[in-house]
């Protein structure tokens, strides 16, 4: 046995980077699974090109998976990687700058040939020209050659053999971080059930990587990251899009309503359609429409009929749904609308994350057209956001927007599996009798919630007509009168405002009054929380409030904000929550606005806070 030291570390950030065809997403997911099952807390961030298969070797074609795992409770996929796995020169070129000083580089040196170096824009080979030497720990490994050697005599094509090089890298990392190869072997056996030769090749490559670590003397250290002390219970690893799908399914179950999904594929929301489409045995009806307008329209039709209706899209699709959302507001029909935000404007950066559709969600419609808006904070929280959106939609007879984003959608974290019998029941009462003297009054409201009743087609005696023209209070007849319109405008606004009455109290992390409050929403929860934790370590008097409810805002928020000298709002946009907060509370909140298609780094927040506090 070589004399490798075992180092104990709290947390590690690994970034896998390679060509689109190199299987980096898969490698990352496998490492994630083993790490999750091992018992670390973790957080992941996949990042891939907009092209299906960008040209091999090009910078644009690099696909990335970042994984942060820890013995502590963590909240982000990490700012800067400790380890960069670079499967080709482009991967190294594009990601070296992010690596921690003295970080580890593991590169497949077989790919560092003239053509690839040129494509990546290298004049000379960085693995050989000494440019990396003093700053990083570099391991140049001929992975391709090694897997070819390992897979000798297996009856598959050379191409298929070469493909297993990602398993080599994975095996090596398993060795480095003391992880078991078992779940990966199981996974390979299931995935390639009908292709034993492929299983064999991948398994050999995996072991080859593992043993490479063990047997070469290249590595002076191995690392252990202890189990995290997560609350007890059953866990699985989950990404946001899947969590949303499950949240909707759970809401359907708890309300007793059939689930209807109408939508149109768009990155990064398409998987919600894919997931739900696979649950026909739950009675789920998915409808891939001709466009986003038809998707939401079909959902509105299904809502009228008494389904739990939903749609999911991203910014440009959301724009198209705007007019129909107005109809759902006027007809006062429940509807869950998921927007998985991506970089914009226009087609923008379709595979990158951003938080720039908040204005659109809260204010982006013609006329006074209020809609509740909820944003999940982590991939697993997407489940609860979707569930809660369904609750509100049904209780208040209103469309509800769930604002997820590309990071939440594709990122993942260990997720304590919810127990269905601990989730609240969602009460649905379809009208079956007249609610007026000898007639049905579709706009006679519930006194408390101001919700109108829901009588669904097929119910004898309650035949009635809905529509987009202004409704008469109580009767729902068409009405053009001035006072009625003012009243209905007010009622629609009041109904949505009422929702805040049911919020749980807003929690302040840190002191209730301090020098500075970091206010976050959506996926910036993680960086915000990490930043405050780090600042607390520095004994700074800083607190954190995370907003789940973007519209209406929590009733207690105004009181909370007043107690802080500074308010800093980090967002992946040019200042949208900041605008909303300033307007509502007339407080001089400041923004930290970094629009780079990625989560904001906790370190950037820390620095900004220190600057504000003059430290």
């Amino acid at each position, binding site marked *: 046995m070589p004399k490798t030291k075992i180092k104990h570390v709290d947390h590690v950030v690994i970034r896998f980077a390679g060509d689109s065809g190199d299987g980096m997403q898969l490698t990352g997911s496998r490492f994630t*699974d083993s790490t*999750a*099952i091992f*018992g670390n807390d973790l957080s992941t961030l996949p990042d891939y090109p907009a092209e299906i298969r960008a040209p091999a070797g090009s910078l644009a074609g690099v696909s990335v998976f970042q994984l942060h795992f820890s013995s502590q409770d963590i909240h982000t996929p990490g700012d800067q990687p400790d380890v960069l796995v670079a499967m080709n020169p482009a991967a190294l070129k594009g990601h070296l700058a992010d690596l921690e000083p003295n970080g580890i580089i593991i590169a497949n040196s077989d790919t560092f040939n003239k053509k690839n170096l040129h494509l990546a824009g290298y004049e000379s080979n960085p693995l050989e020209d000494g440019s990396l030497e003093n700053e990083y720990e570099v391991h140049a490994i001929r992975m391709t050659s090694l897997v070819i050697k390992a897979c000798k005599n297996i009856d598959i094509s050379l191409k298929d053999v070469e493909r297993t090089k990602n398993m080599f890298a994975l095996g090596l990392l398993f060795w480095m971080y003391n992880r078991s190869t078992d*779940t990966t072997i199981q996974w390979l056996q299931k995935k390639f059930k009908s292709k034993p030769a492929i299983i064999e090749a991948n398994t050999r490559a995996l072991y080859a990587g593992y043993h490479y670590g063990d047997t070469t003397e290249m590595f002076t250290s191995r690392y252990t990251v202890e189990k995290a002390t*997560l609350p*007890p*219970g*059953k*866990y*699985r*690893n989950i990404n946001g899009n899947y969590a949303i799908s*499950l949240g909707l*399914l*759970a809401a359907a*179950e708890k309300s007793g309503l*059939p689930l*209807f999904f*109408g939508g149109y594929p768009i990155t990064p929301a398409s998987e919600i359609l894919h997931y739900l489409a696979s*649950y*026909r*045995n*739950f*009675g789920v*009806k998915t*409808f891939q*429409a*001709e*466009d986003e*307008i*038809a998707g939401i*329209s*079909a959902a*509105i*039709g*299904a*809502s*009228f*009929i*008494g*389904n739990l*209706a939903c749609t999911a899209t991203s910014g440009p699709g959301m724009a198209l749904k705007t*007019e*129909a959302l*107005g*109809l759902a507001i006027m*007809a006062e029909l429940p509807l869950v609308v998921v927007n998985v935000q991506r970089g914009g404007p226009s087609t923008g950066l379709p595979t990158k994350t951003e938080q720039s559709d908040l204005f659109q969600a809260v204010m982006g419609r013609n006329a006074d057209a209020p809609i509740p808006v909820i944003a999940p904070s982590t991939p697993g929280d997407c489940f609860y956001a979707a569930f809660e959106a369904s609750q509100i939609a049904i209780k208040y007879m209103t469309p509800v927007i769930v604002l997820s984003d590309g990071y939440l959608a594709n990122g993942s974290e260990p997720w304590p*599996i919810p127990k*269905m019998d601990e989730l609240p029941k969602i009460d649905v009462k379809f009208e079956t009798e007249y609610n007026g003297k000898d007639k049905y009054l579709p706009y006679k409201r519930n006194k408390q919630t101001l919700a109108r009743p829901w009588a669904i*087609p*097929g119910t*004898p*005696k309650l*035949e*009635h*007509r*809905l*529509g*987009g023209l202004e409704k008469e209070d109580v009767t729902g007849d*068409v009405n053009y009168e001035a006072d009625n319109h003012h009243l209905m405008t007010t009622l629609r606004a009041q109904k949505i405002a009422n929702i805040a009455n049911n919020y749980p109290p807003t929690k302040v992390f840190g002191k209730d009054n301090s020098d500075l409050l970091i206010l976050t929403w959506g996926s910036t929860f993680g960086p915000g929380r990490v930043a405050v934790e780090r600042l607390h370590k520095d004994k700074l008097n800083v607190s954190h409030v995370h907003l789940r409810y973007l519209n209406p805002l929590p009733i207690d928020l105004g009181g909370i904000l007043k107690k802080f000298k500074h308010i800093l709002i980090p967002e992946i946009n040019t200042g949208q929550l900041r605008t909303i907060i300033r307007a509502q509370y007339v407080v001089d909140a400041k923004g930290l606005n970094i629009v780079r298609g990625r989560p904001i780094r906790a370190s950037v927040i820390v620095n900004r806070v220190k600057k504000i506090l003059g430290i």
Partner: protein
Amino acid sequence: MTDIKKIKSLDLSRMDFVTNQSLKWCPGCGDYSILKQTQRILPELGVPKEKFLFISGIGCSSRFPYYINTYGFHTIHGRATAIASGAKLANPDLSVWVVTGDGDALSIGGNHTIHLMRRNLDINILLFNNRIYGLTKGQYSPTSELGKVTKSTPMGSLDRPFNPTSLALGSQATFVARTIDRNPKHIQSILKSAYEHKGTSFVEIYQNCNIFNNGAFKDLTDKKILSENIIQLEHGQPMIFGKNHNLGIHLDGYTPKIIDLNKDDNVSIDDVLVHNEKDIVIASMLSSFTYNDNFPTPIGIIYSVDEPIYEDMLQDQINTAIEKQGKGDIQNLLNSGNIWEVK
């Protein structure tokens, strides 16, 4: 699946389908007649009143649901077919009718209309074609004739019109028919056939807008000349028209010609083409007569074939999935995948 079609007499009458809303169409508008005929046939379909659902977009014609005492939804411009699709999928047991105009269905809503037809949900589309935008006060529509002078085209429109029945055929529609506001009996029979047809039924109804496009169909409604200008189609019957039932459609090779049974030499009823509503070539040819001055305008069922129904297949998938995988259990699903336990 749906059993609505089997229920017999329910003791409903036309008056059961009249609402308390005052009608707001212009006096003389063709919409009145279509409303009335619809209210007449609904009681005869054996469907309980509460199972009818009328969905419309925006336009004069789209006010229709307010006036018919069933479930109804007056939605937004162009989206009625999409909203109806969701409603029908959610509850296939409803008898769903879309009421729409030439602007609503073919201009802003064109895409949803053609997609509904290819999907073949069992929905009946009633397209009130007045060849004009009524509600916005008289701009030309996608069915207005080329050169139409309107408010938005003071020197005449520049777009060649759609022929709605051709568009329907090109969109894989399974039922394509045409009728006219001024022919109550014909409307009734076509609406009933549309209802009977399983799958999307596309019915174009020529409708006079006496305010902004008066007389658009006068050649087809003027008693004196209509028999020369209209050919009423019947499946399996020779294509005969004319005041004295003397004119017929004859195929010369693949080229249609009009023959006069009374005048032309050597022609007999056997030379007259027999209508076959199952044949796409015949249907295409008949539809192409529409804007052609040399041929009569066909009314009746141009095309009608049976094809699989979207919502039936969806239900089949659900049934199969349940059969094969068992009825979904959400807790089991949550607990699936790579699970670990923290103690």
